[in-house]
């Protein structure tokens, strides 16, 4: 459990008394299954202002998508005995409103309106029986008392804004008549119908080709600037994160293991898992390596998370720490050296981490 509720306390000065636009505090999302309790998200905290972008990075099963769905309140709630759905604890403050304890009606009013989501696979996120226009208009009219023709005008305007050619006629097309990239553009248009202040993009470009991915990333960057929304981008692609994010949170086994400004996380990371991620991928902007340096082993099963630090069975630095890594869960703490906020969850002493990075890891990057 994080002892520091807000990284702003340690680094940036901000006016006291005001909450960040989005303030997630010690969020837990647990699912009870036949095989045992799955702690998909196990105590994460982060903050985000409008106009800023947070990148959440992690492997499959690290809890990154569960986090995004819980922000929108899209998990089915468990019954009183904690069965049949998600048990959420902690706080999510969006512009002064708490969402974990909010009822369905309130979430409904916010969802699609103040906060919206861009899903990974636009083909399965759109209804195949309705035209793209119908779906966009519905998203608008749920939250605004306007006529159909006004909604249609808005839909055409948004399709035009995201770069769909001939929006006047394409608005009446069905999703299958769009190509993959156009479908993702239409999804983005749908999420922007109500000018959301918080936009969550869950693997928005994973299903797309690189040339289309480049178009969509540029579009998202432009739109964020135009609408001044807070953006959370969830991905496993470090290249995508580096292009968009101001802050990065690296997740492993349901917990944040490293959290800081994008530049710090990429150039002076301190968690062995982040090192592993950065050294294991081949990069086009570096000379060809003889051999990649993979992280050994497999991501943990969420039913049977390793005791202590979840990363310890795959970590190359466990021996330096006695039995601590497997016995005790490390806390997410500010590393002393960096002036700005930079939180790391690791038992290794800060000076050892920094020395190891400078001497052994930096050359591999």
């Amino acid at each position, binding site marked *: 459990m994080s002892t520091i509720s807000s990284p702003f306390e340690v680094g940036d000065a901000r006016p006291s008394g005001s909450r960040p636009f989005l303030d997630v505090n010690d969020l837990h999302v647990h699912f009870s299954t036949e095989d045992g309790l799955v702690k998909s998200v196990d105590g994460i905290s982060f903050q985000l202002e409008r106009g800023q972008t947070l990148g959440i990075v992690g*492997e*499959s099963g690290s809890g990154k998508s569960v986090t995004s769905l819980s922000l929108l309140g899209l998990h089915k709630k468990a019954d009183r005995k904690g069965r049949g759905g998600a048990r959420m604890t902690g706080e999510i403050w969006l512009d002064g409103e708490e969402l974990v304890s909010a009822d369905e009606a309130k979430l409904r009013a916010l969802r699609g309106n103040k906060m919206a989501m861009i899903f990974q696979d636009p083909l399965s996120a759109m209804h195949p029986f309705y035209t793209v226009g119908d779906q966009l208009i519905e998203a608008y009219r749920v939250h605004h008392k306007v006529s159909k023709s006004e909604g249609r005008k808005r839909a055409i305007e948004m399709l035009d804004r995201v770069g769909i050619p001939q929006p006047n006629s394409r608005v009446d097309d069905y999703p299958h008549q769009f*190509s*993959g*990239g*156009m479908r993702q553009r239409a999804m983005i248009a749908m999420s922007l119908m109500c000018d959301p202040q918080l936009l969550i993009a869950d693997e928005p470009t994973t299903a797309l*080709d*690189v*040339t*289309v*991915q*480049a*178009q969509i*990333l*540029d579009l998202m*960057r432009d739109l964020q600037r135009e609408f001044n929304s807070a953006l959370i981008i969830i991905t*496993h*692609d*470090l*290249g*995508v*994160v*580096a*292009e*968009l*994010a101001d802050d990065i949170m690296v997740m492993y086994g349901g917990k944040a293991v490293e959290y800081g400004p*994008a*530049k710090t996380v*990429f*150039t002076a990371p301190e968690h062995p898992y982040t090192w*592993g*991620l*950065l050294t*294991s*991928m*081949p*990069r*086009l*902007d570096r000379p*060809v*390596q003889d*051999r*990649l*340096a*993979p*992280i*050994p082993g*497999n*991501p943990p099963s969420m039913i049977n998370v390793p005791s202590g630090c979840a990363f310890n069975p795959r970590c190359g630095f466990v021996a330096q720490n006695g039995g601590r890594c497997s016995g005790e869960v490390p806390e997410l703490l500010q590393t002393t050296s960096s002036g700005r906020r930079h939180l790391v969850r690791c038992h290794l002493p800060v000076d050892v981490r920094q020395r190891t990075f400078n001497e052994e890891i930096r050359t591999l990057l």
Partner: protein
Amino acid sequence: MSTDNYSSATVADAGRAASGAASEPLLSATGVQMHFPIRRGLLRRTVGAVRAVDGVDFEVRPGETLGLVGESGCGKSTTGRLLTRLLEPTGGTVKFEGRDITHMKPGELRPLRRDIQMVFQDPQSSLNPRHTIGSIVGAPFEIQGIKSPNGTKRAVQDLLALVGLSPEHYNRYPHEFSGGQRQRIGIARALALKPKLVVADEPVSALDVSIQAQVVNLFEDLQAELGLAYVFIAHDLSVVRHISDRVAVMYLGKIVEIANRDDLYSSARHPYTQALLSAVPIPDPDRKGEEAKRERILLTGDVPSPINPPSGCRFRTRCWKAQEICSTQEPPLVQLTSGPRPTGADHKVACHFPD
């Protein structure tokens, strides 16, 4: 990992490794086409064709890795299936070690399956969930009727060890394994009979980042130990650069550029290759935003339909250099001999206005 066990376990086929002179290609494709017919109406009349692969020429040399890149729908997977003869080409010829295998019947192909194997993208759907790992990896021995000196079980266990799994996994089922481990099982199956050529179709794209590196290293280790040649099909340009000796870039059923790895990545000549390379996001936050945008060649529009591809050069509809000639004449894939920057013999480009 023990090579000794492995070689004694499989059939001792003298002289199979390191056969053929270096100049002799292991596999060559000439003008290979795959047009899938589109049938309509009561009589299932052919009304058109999806020209998935529309005349590709290249060769694979013994022991090398040829990377095949391109966007979805460009025909790279179909090309892989033509090389392994899982599909029969509708035109052109595929030769393996000098033998024409283009239209061989299944019975004739069977002995060849020892030499050409395939690793699939999705390790979930390419392993039969009702079979144990032992029977999946042992199937090639059974089908080909090969007796191993120490028995098939021993041979399979050696293979499992070779790809980094434990011999105790013999009696387990695919669902008991993680994605990375399942991909290793698929690789073990492909290697069972010591093939000369392995066609790997997106073998790492379904895996997590940290696991991708493990499997890429495994591919390289096995190549060093066993002298395999790979055709490595992928859309991830950084992985392809890491593993390949030569790289071919496909667009809409055609190869637009083929070159040695370093030539292709450092001095790409075809506009499409340049656009493709510039679009790869670089994990460097200093280059974010405007800067990345400026360096990037942004292609407009989408890939045209392979049912009705553009005349002349297929890339012309999205190319910023396109001129009159591009729509009338199809540029051949050739070495650039004239012009300010001629290319080496191994670097071929299909463009009227190469950079």
